[in-house]
């Protein structure tokens, strides 16, 4: 137990030793455990991406075989989606910040929170075992009956790993929902909540409703593969489209699991560095919930050419278009918040700018794909690859980095090198666009995804993309260096370096184990920034 009178004591030096980390029930320490684990998987997934781009430099296959290429893009997708993007913001920043932003001393169920990290780790070990044991080549979507009957690669270990990982997501989501419902500080009503909390709440609801459906799908797939029966195998009377329905019922909402938390982070960052109250708070909160609800009704747009009924496709197409409405509300409101603000160009808002611009492109190209006729031309081309990388890397990862840079001083008590941080934000933006913009053109020209060879006329654009990927890769390594380097400094960040209004900034940096010595009482709405009250 910490002694609240000792001012210098914080959650990092409250206890020492391996046990104090691996058996901790402090949400902040668990967030750090998650930070380390997901960073590891990010670089594993990134390593596969580098190999993919290297192979695609030339039209012939030269570095890897076709089979290895299939395994590379499968493991890239599985590592990035299941083990990095889905847990990234909720499990790291959400774990750390949700209790602090609502004036609570911890999440509602600290032991479940720790269990969640262990389940993540066990799920990850299954995946790493698969890698060592020869990999998986089904694509991260595990489409049946290829996955259940034909492939000779390791389907079952990955399916088990992802199944276990699902429990980890669900436990975190239960924790967030209960904490946000029951543990808000006195006076902190729903419409006084920071938008990051709204986003975390919406994400948790999606996780609770969607993840179990993926879990049962994987159970059925595993049973089908092991017992040799065919729920999804047309040769045995099953229905492969049923697999796709069940899979995308989770995996489309999972896109919003990845991007909604980033939207929450961007809302915090934009209002703080524009020194201006967020524009249209209520609309922002409702837009988050609207995206969460609509996100559950559009999964069929992944199956326009899979033999789905054309009438179903019409409905799914129309509903997919409607997701653009709340998304656009958010983009317009961020822009309106910036309008006539006193914008301070610090690192977090540079990443947030990156998010807004790239997410907009990703969202608008999504409308192309939601159109039935256009989608027939673009399905399974690089246009799709470019589109979802604009949402997931340009959107979700940029938002994650904005959040890491915004809350780093609170999490560690240290400031990072601002010049290096701005530089890396810039080259990430450049590298990202150079990597993925050519892929829109490639897709439009008809280059299919998931092939390791391509016609010679596509080479110029592919070389551009690979060049961009090397810049992008460098851009991800630089923050690793200066963020770790910043830990060598004395704790110099100050309690509130950005002059933010959130409750989390009223605590010391780094916070004490119990976050708040006295439960705060909230009497105002969030984001009451006055333009002159800027940071020091």
């Amino acid at each position: 137990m910490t002694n609240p009178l000792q001012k210098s004591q914080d959650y990092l030096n409250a206890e020492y030793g391996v046990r104090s980390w691996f058996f901790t029930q402090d949400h902040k320490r668990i967030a750090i455990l998650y930070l380390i684990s997901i960073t590891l998987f990010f670089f594993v997934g990134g390593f596969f991406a580098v190999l993919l781009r290297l192979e695609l430099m030339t039209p012939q296959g030269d570095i890897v075989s076709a089979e290895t290429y299939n395994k590379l893009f499968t493991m890239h997708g599985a590592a990035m989606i299941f083990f990095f993007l889905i847990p990234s913001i909720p499990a790291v920043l959400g774990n750390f910040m949700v209790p602090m932003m609502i004036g609570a001393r911890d999440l509602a169920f600290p032991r479940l929170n720790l269990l969640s990290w262990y389940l993540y780790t066990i799920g990850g070990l299954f995946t790493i075992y698969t890698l060592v044991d020869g990999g998986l080549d089904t694509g991260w979507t595990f489409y049946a009956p290829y996955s259940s009957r034909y492939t000779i690669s390791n389907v079952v270990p990955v399916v088990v790993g992802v199944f276990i990982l699902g429990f980890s997501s669900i436990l975190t989501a239960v924790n967030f929902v209960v904490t946000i419902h029951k543990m808000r500080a006195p006076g902190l009503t729903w419409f006084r909540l920071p938008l990051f909390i709204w986003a975390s709440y919406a994400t948790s609801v999606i996780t609770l409703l969607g993840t179990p459906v993926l879990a049962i799908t994987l159970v059925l797939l595993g049973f089908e593969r092991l017992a040799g029966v065919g729920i999804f195998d047309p040769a045995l009377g099953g229905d492969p489209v049923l697999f796709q329905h069940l899979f995308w019922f989770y995996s489309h909402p999972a896109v919003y699991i990845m991007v909604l938390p980033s939207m929450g982070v961007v809302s915090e960052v934009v209002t703080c560095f524009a020194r201006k109250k967020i524009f249209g708070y209520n609309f922002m909160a409702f837009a988050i919930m609207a995206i969460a609800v609509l996100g559950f009704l559009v999964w069929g747009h992944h199956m326009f050419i899979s033999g789905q009924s054309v009438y179903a496709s019409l409905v799914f197409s129309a509903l997919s278009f409607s997701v653009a409405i709340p998304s656009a509300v958010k983009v317009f409101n961020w822009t309106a918040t910036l309008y006539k603000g006193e914008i301070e160009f610090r690192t977090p808002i540079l990443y947030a700018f990156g998010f807004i611009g790239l997410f907009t492109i990703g969202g608008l190209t999504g409308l192309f794909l939601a159109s039935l006729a256009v989608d027939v031309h673009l399905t399974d081309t690089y246009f799709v690859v470019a589109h979802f990388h604009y949402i997931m890397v340009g959107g979700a990862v940029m938002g994650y980095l904005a959040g890491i840079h915004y809350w780093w001083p609170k999490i560690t008590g240290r400031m990072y090198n601002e010049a290096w941080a701005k530089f890396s934000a810039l080259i990430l933006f450049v590298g990202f666009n150079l990597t993925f913009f050519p892929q829109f053109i490639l897709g439009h020209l008809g280059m299919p995804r998931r092939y390791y060879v391509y016609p010679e006329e596509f080479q110029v654009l592919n070389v551009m993309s690979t060049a961009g990927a090397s810049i992008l890769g460098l851009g991800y390594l630089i923050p690793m260096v200066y963020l770790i380097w910043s830990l060598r400094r004395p704790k110099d960040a100050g309690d509130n370096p950005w002059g933010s209004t959130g409750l989390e900034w009223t605590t010391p940096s780094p916070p004490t184990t119990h976050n708040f010595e006295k439960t705060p009482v909230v009497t105002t709405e969030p984001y009451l920034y006055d333009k002159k009250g800027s940071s020091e």
Partner: protein
Amino acid sequence: MSKVHSAVAHHFEDAEQQREAATLGMWAFLVTEVMFFGGVFGAYAVCHFLYPDAFAAASNKLNVVLGATNTAVLICSSLSMALAVRAAQTDKVKQIVPWLILTIVLGLVFFVIKYFEYMHKFHEHLFPGASFVFEGPHGAQAQLFFTLYFVMTGLHATHMVIGFGLMLWLIVRARKGHFSSAYNTPVEITGLYWHFVDIVWIFLFPLLYLIGRA
């Protein structure tokens, strides 16, 4: 009624907040359980829609008497679980353990009956896989029915085993005198879980045993 266990964990304001948090947490978890079983019910609905005749023929191979008996047994176990919760809430602490034991015993009766049902299916080569044999025109489709039958009842049984574990844990704690009208959240939320598992069976029984029966 030791003070240690009625104490409020450090991050809660009071016992009421702690109880509400735990209860809401279990409800949220049950929502995910509904979606989990919802997925397999959805798969069942699709297959049944595709092959109504084969599913009717396969369903006729199940033993309705055993299934109905098991339904009755589980409903009784829900009653005894509810009485255990009631005993904790009304400070009849000596009754908690007997009611929990009765609940486990009824669950085990369910398992014994289920065991004979499963064995019968194995002997008749109705377990899906290489050895599956089904006379008549609907062989492959009937195998789908039995795949879903074993997955659904197997998952339900897995949930019951977890329920046994929770109840054993409750028995240990109840013997130490942890529960009273002032603090009985674990009993209450385990009760919620057990009722959920029973309700799943209430849906499984008509879907698997009764639909399409001539």
